[in-house]
């Protein structure tokens, strides 16, 4: 019983401490969070968005960038619909942010889930993820021209992550640009896709750089081109002879397809501008840390960032583009 009373005393002390935290005076001018920040990941653990969210969480706690901890919560059900619906429903809750990937657009379009990014508050674009066309090193395909020729000769098997999502959209865009027919085979995650290519169970993939870089360096895979307007920035040698910057763009190789994937932050509807500003500043400070810079170089991310109206306009354009791409591919939700 004495032990029990002791525990009770400890609890009381703890509650008091908690109360003190809440009651401590805050600077009057700027808004600051006064409880833990929920960071929603509309995907499962271990994927690209999850990794980025956890890096941000780690950076914030390591450098003490916020007074309250960030708590990462995975809500990946229904291709992310679950997480987006939750944040859409958390009106005016300033302690909730979501990291988005292309499923911000593709999930509502493909499944008809009643959700739209316009109901959320855009905070900041962190980066854009690149897509690279990969083939096996011993496939005999050396250039985009070889690839197109081969794909016209017979159905190539394209591996990708998920169905009616970014990888398949890029595949359909390639089909349209070349007039070739391909077979798209969906897998669960980028790592698995890259390995299937190494094992030659598929003929090509459009993996993100970070998913395939290890196999490139070991000499198993070969990048043909990058689906961006310009070449990638990092000039450090990745293999003995090549750097990311040495990969040509698909367009300069005669394959006119461009696709980038959003890695950005949004908030629930109805939050105040001061609250949004807090997260914009927080993320700005995150982007200045060496850990973030490492991540950006390793993943060869496109480092375009935007906030405010620019970001909202960009989202608007992207949604239209996705709608058009998915309509052509027949991926739009019907019924």
């Amino acid at each position, binding site marked *: 019983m004495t032990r*029990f009373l002791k525990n009770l005393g400890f609890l009381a002390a*703890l509650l008091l401490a908690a109360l003190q935290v809440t009651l401590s005076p805050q600077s009057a001018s700027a808004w600051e969070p006064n409880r*833990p920040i929920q960071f929603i990941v509309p995907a499962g653990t271990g994927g690209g968005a999850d990794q980025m969210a956890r890096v941000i969480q780690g950076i914030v706690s390591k450098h003490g960038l916020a007074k309250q*901890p960030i708590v990462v919560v995975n809500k990946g059900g229904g291709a992310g619909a679950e997480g987006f619906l939750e944040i859409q429903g958390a009106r005016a809750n300033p302690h909730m942010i979501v990291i988005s990937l292309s499923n911000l657009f593709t999930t509502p379009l493909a499944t008809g889930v009643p959700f739209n990014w316009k109901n959320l508050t855009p905070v900041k674009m962190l980066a854009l993820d690149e897509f690279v066309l990969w083939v096996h090193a011993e496939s005999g395909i050396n250039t985009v021209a070889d690839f197109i020729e081969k794909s016209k000769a017979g159905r190539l098997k394209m591996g990708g992550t998920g169905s009616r999502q970014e990888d398949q959209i890029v595949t359909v865009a390639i089909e349209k640009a070349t007039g070739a027919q391909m077979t798209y085979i969906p897998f669960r995650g980028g790592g698995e896709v890259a390995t299937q290519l190494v094992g030659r169970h598929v003929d090509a993939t459009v993996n993100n750089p970070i998913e395939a870089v290890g196999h490139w360096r070991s000499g198993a895979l070969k990048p043909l081109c990058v689906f961006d307007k310009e070449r990638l920035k990092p000039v450090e040698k990745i293999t003995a002879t090549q750097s990311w910057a040495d990969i040509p763009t698909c367009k300069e190789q005669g394959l006119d397809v461009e696709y980038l994937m959003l890695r950005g932050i949004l908030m629930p509807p109805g939050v105040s501008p001061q609250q949004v500003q807090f997260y914009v500043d927080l993320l700005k400070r995150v982007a200045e840390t060496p850990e973030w810079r490492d991540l950006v170089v390793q993943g060869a991310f496109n480092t375009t960032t935007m906030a405010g109206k620019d970001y909202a306009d960009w989202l608007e354009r992207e949604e239209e583009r996705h709608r058009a791409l998915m309509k052509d591919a027949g991926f739009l939700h019907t019924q």
Partner: protein
Amino acid sequence: MSSQTGGEGRAIKSFWIEISFALFLAALGGVAIIDSLRLGAGWAADGPKAGFFPFWIGLCLSAAALTVLVQTLVKRSDAVFAQTHELKLVGAIALPTALFVAVIPFVGIYGAGALMIAGFLRKLGRYSWLFSAGAAVVLMAGFFIVFEFWFLVPMPKGPLETALGF
């Protein structure tokens, strides 16, 4: 793990429960079949469509459930589901659990848990109210610390936690 006959109370026969459960499963299979037909339950040029497997699974389930139904009707066995006093004991656990689950959205998992533990200790364990309530609060506070502070896993919370700033 069939229940023994005898003991106090009335025996409840499996018969009707068996039949209801079989009908429930058959209906479940039916629902799967209907939804699969919507998706397309056929075999396309490149393999089965999305509804192919759920369709056959639903069909097998319905068939199996109806077979169980027929078997039960034919056999008319006297198998006992449970004794009434046994069901009372099960109810003594299951109903508070249902209540616990039902109040989580309103008072949070910690509050609901504390209420249930206190109730169990008092009603089933016959401890004093003071001890029951104290133990419940301490235990749930322990869970609170483990999940909210150590592991940073947010659980459903209620007005009490909100008032404390979580």
